């Protein structure tokens, strides 16, 4: 896993206390949301496990002996969800972080389809995510829900049609020009 360079605000002690004044808190929220998103991107984390993240350096900076409280972690993650960059698992123990938007992933997948002449073919979601043909592409091993969202985004603009399968992973997709 690649190293992550924490931004400067992560080294300022008050960053780890939820600010009482709304305007300051808005700025703080923006900083935390960007940090969580960037951290997940660099570490290629799709599902952020809250209890695991709590023990990681993401929410605690041992160098200055500060950490976010459980409530504040929940708060900033909820703000990330509110701005559309993440989605809660129903039990709120995990958070699916969209460090790349569905349409962005969709565009990548579509480029691969065009480049390799797979237009008009019926592919399964599993083939796209796990198939040997996509090894080396950034969307290889993409998280399942994110993949489906990305394909749905492509379907909306008429670039593919989804075909029901026996499971989510078995979902079929037919790309069109």
């Amino acid at each position, binding site marked *: 896993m690649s190293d992550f360079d924490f*931004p*400067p*605000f992560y*080294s*300022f*002690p*008050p*960053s*780890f*206390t939820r*600010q*009482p*004044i709304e*305007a*300051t808190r*808005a*700025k*703080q929220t923006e*900083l935390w949301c960007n940090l969580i998103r960037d951290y997940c991107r660099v570490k290629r984390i799709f599902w952020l496990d809250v209890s695991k993240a709590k023990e990681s350096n993401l929410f605690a900076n041992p160098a200055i*002996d*500060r*950490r976010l409280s459980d409530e504040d972690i929940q708060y900033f993650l909820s703000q990330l969800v509110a701005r559309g960059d993440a989605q809660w698992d129903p039990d709120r123990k995990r958070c699916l972080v969209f460090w790349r938007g569905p349409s962005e992933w969709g565009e990548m997948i579509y480029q691969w389809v065009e480049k390799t002449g797979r237009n008009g073919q019926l592919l399964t979601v599993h083939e796209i995510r796990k198939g040997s043909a996509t090894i080396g592409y950034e969307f290889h091993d993409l998280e399942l829900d994110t993949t489906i969202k990305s394909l749905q985004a492509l379907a909306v603009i008429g670039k593919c049609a989804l075909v029901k399968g026996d499971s989510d992973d078995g979902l079929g997709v037919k790309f069109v020009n």
Partner: protein
Amino acid sequence: MPPGRRPGRASIREDVRRREEMAKRGAMISAETAQHMKMQLRTFSTKLEQFAIDHKDEIQRDPAFRAKFHSMCASIGVDPLTSRKGKWSDLLGVGDYYYELAVRIIEVCVATRPTNGGIISLRELVSALRIRRTTYTENVSSDDVERALAKLNVLEGGFKVMMIGHRKVVQSVPVELSVDHTNALAISEETGYISASALREKLKWEKERIMTTLRFLLEHEIAWLDLQTSEPTYWILGLMSGSSTFT
């Protein structure tokens, strides 16, 4: 004039004539002097112009050189910044330089305002400008920033440079800071933060005065609160180095 004798008409006439003569001569001399000085000044001005042309690049590039050039201009009463249309700014682009710099300063102040409430140390402002690495800010000095800020003063409710403790601080919001506020801010100089106990010990304030001041700094977004210490601390981000990179 001897007593008992009134001056004759002739002597009065003579007196007037002499006075007129003297005035005429005096005028001639001062006209000559003025003419001479004007010529000198013109020569000097031409030389200064030539100097400016010869050293244009250095003036633009080197802050120390620029500062010296400015003090030289100031000593003969030439202000190369006063007019954008003036020949000096045409010649050097110095007017443009400070206008452009002023624009960058505004950008930094606006961008960092959510973090520091519009209070930023001159030092941090300069380093934020340098980080941007644009033509106008790469080699900027605090002297340049102050000059550009002086230009910004034509804007109403504009930018203020003040001393807080031993530091020059730029304020870009029209909030009136009281002596209590600036005294409290000065306490953060060494550690970056203020606490109630520090204000009590160093300024001998009563509880209410302390709380009013701390509350003000929080509410005006100048201070950030840290509750993970034995007593709450109030961090003045704009006066800490590195805080301008939060954006």
